[in-house]
Structure formats: structure tokens, C-alpha cells
């Protein structure tokens, strides 16, 4: 028989892993976006 507490811990770890993965992806996307914004601003000569 499954231990319900163990199941809950597994669920928590799985949620934490998937949230960490999504956060990492979003942060990487933001790094790329900020880099591109900087390039666009340099190119257009705006502050």
C-alpha cells in the first residue's frame, strides 16, 4: 500500500522541480530580452 505522506512529498518535489525549470527558462528569456533591448537602444541612440 502507498504511504500517503510519501506520495505528498513526491508531489511537492515534482511541483518544485517543474516550477524551478519554468523560472530558469523565464530568467534566461529575460537575459536575452535585456541584451536585445540594450542593442536596440544603442542602435537607435536613445538613452
Amino acid at each position: 500500500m502507498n504511504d500517503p505522506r510519501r506520495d505528498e512529498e513526491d508531489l511537492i518535489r515534482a511541483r518544485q522541480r517543474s516550477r524551478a525549470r519554468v523560472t530558469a527558462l523565464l530568467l534566461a528569456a529575460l537575459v536575452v530580452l535585456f541584451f536585445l533591448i540594450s542593442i536596440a537602444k544603442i542602435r537607435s541612440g536613445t538613452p
Partner: protein
Amino acid sequence: MTTMTRPLPVPADWRDFLALTKPGVMRLVVFTGLCGLLAAPVTMDPILGFTAILCIALAAGAAGALNQWYESDLDAKMKRTRGRPLPAGRMDRQSALHFGVGLGVFAVILMGLAINLLAAAILAVSILFYVLIYTVWLKRRTPQNIVIGGAAGAFPPLIGWAAATDHVAALPLFMFALIFLWTPPHFWALAMFVKSDYANAGVPMLPVVAGERVTRTQIGLYTVPMAVAAIAPWPLGLTHAIYGVVATAATAFFALLAFRVATRRTQPEDRMRPEKRLFAFSIAYLFVIFGALVVDRFAA
């Protein structure tokens, strides 16, 4: 030795955070914001244009999250909304509040730093208007909730234009007026066929408080100034004939559907087909009008 029985908090899934941003509503917000940006008489760097639209989308998501944070009790009472993350118990209210505030502040700061301060200021006003004026103040108090609250949804084309030009002009103000005046017929058509849901939740929507006769009349009345706001940019020389012809035809069809709703009476076992048709077309109507605005700018 005793076993610890305190339940562990299960963190919400990232998909629930996404659901908190109301992606369905965001589509129209992003589209009208993009059209406001593209209709402006300047060409924006694509990266900066993308950033401006991203900020509008994030701000809309933040406003949606804060709306759901404040209204979780109301959402639990309505069939249409009881599956949302908070009333369904998949997320705690504090997470929703932190997410909404964080997203909103980030969107405004990014708009201010990457685009311009005017666009950031209007963006901040639009979030605060939706959350404080509509959600907190008006929605549970008056049947005029969506009339005044409609202004919150009218900001995106203004923000898009301000992002591209750093100023506000007559054309985006007409677009603001159009969405503002479109909101009452759009939402009251919906409220006519989900009336019992609103009544059960205690939301004083016009059909619940004033009855269907008054609501039908108000739908008809609001359509008149809406039509003026939609068509006026053409004779005023703010757009060309492409927009003028499309806006006139689409508005005439909208007015026909609204006239049908305004002049009929609810029958026993009424399936509310004209109201459903008006509601469905009202969404397509905004896509058509704003799409025509952009085509007019580039083709004429």
C-alpha cells in the same frame, strides 16, 4: 515515537499561475495594444515594439491575478469561475497576491526603462483602475460597474500608441472611447444569458438589478455613441477610406444585432440566441475594427 501529521503545503503548479493571468482576456488586450502601436505614425524598433507589447500583456496578467485574488469568494459561487485556481483550492491567496503585485510592478518598471515614462504611467493607471476602481470599488456596489470599469480595458491601444510616439493623439483617444462604449453592450449581452450566475453570486449586474427591459434599452442606447466613436475618425481625416468602409460596415452589423436585442422581449424557455449572437460578434467586431486600422495605416 509519534508520526508528524501536519500536512505539508503543496505548492501551486506553474500552470495555475498562468491561469491566474486570464490568457483568454489577454488575447484581445494584446491585439488592441499591438494595433495601437502599429497604427501610430512612426516605425518602432521591432525589439522595443515586442517589449512594449510584452509589458502590456504582463500588466494585463497582473491585473487578472489581482482580480482573482480579491474575488476568490465570488468566483467560488459562479459556475463559470469556480474552476479557477483559488476557488478550486489549488493555490493559496497569498501566492496570488505576491504574483500579481510582482508581475505588475515588473511590467511598469520594464516599460519605463525600455520604452518611455508616458507609456509606463498609463500602464500603471490601467492596472490600478482595473484592480482598485473596478474590482474593489465598483463591481459589488453598482450596476454601472462595467460602464466605468470598461475604461480599464480601453487603455491598451492608448498605451501602444504612447509606447511608439511618446505622446497621445486624437486617434488613440477615439479607440479608447470605442472600447469604453463597446464594453456595456458586450457585457450586458453576456449578463443577459448568465443572469442567474451573477444573481447567485450577488453581483449587481444590470439585468439582475434593473431587469431585462432596462438592460435591452441600455444596450441599444450605448450602441449609438459607440458607433460614432468607431466611424468618426474617418470623416475627421484621422484615417483613410479602408478603415472608414470596414468600420462603417462592421458597426452597421453590430448596430443591427444590438437593435434586435434592444427591441425584443424574453420569451418563456428563451434560449437567448440574439444576445449570444451579439456577444460573440462583439468580440469579432473589435478584432475587425482594430485590424482595419492597421491595414489602413500601411495600405492607404
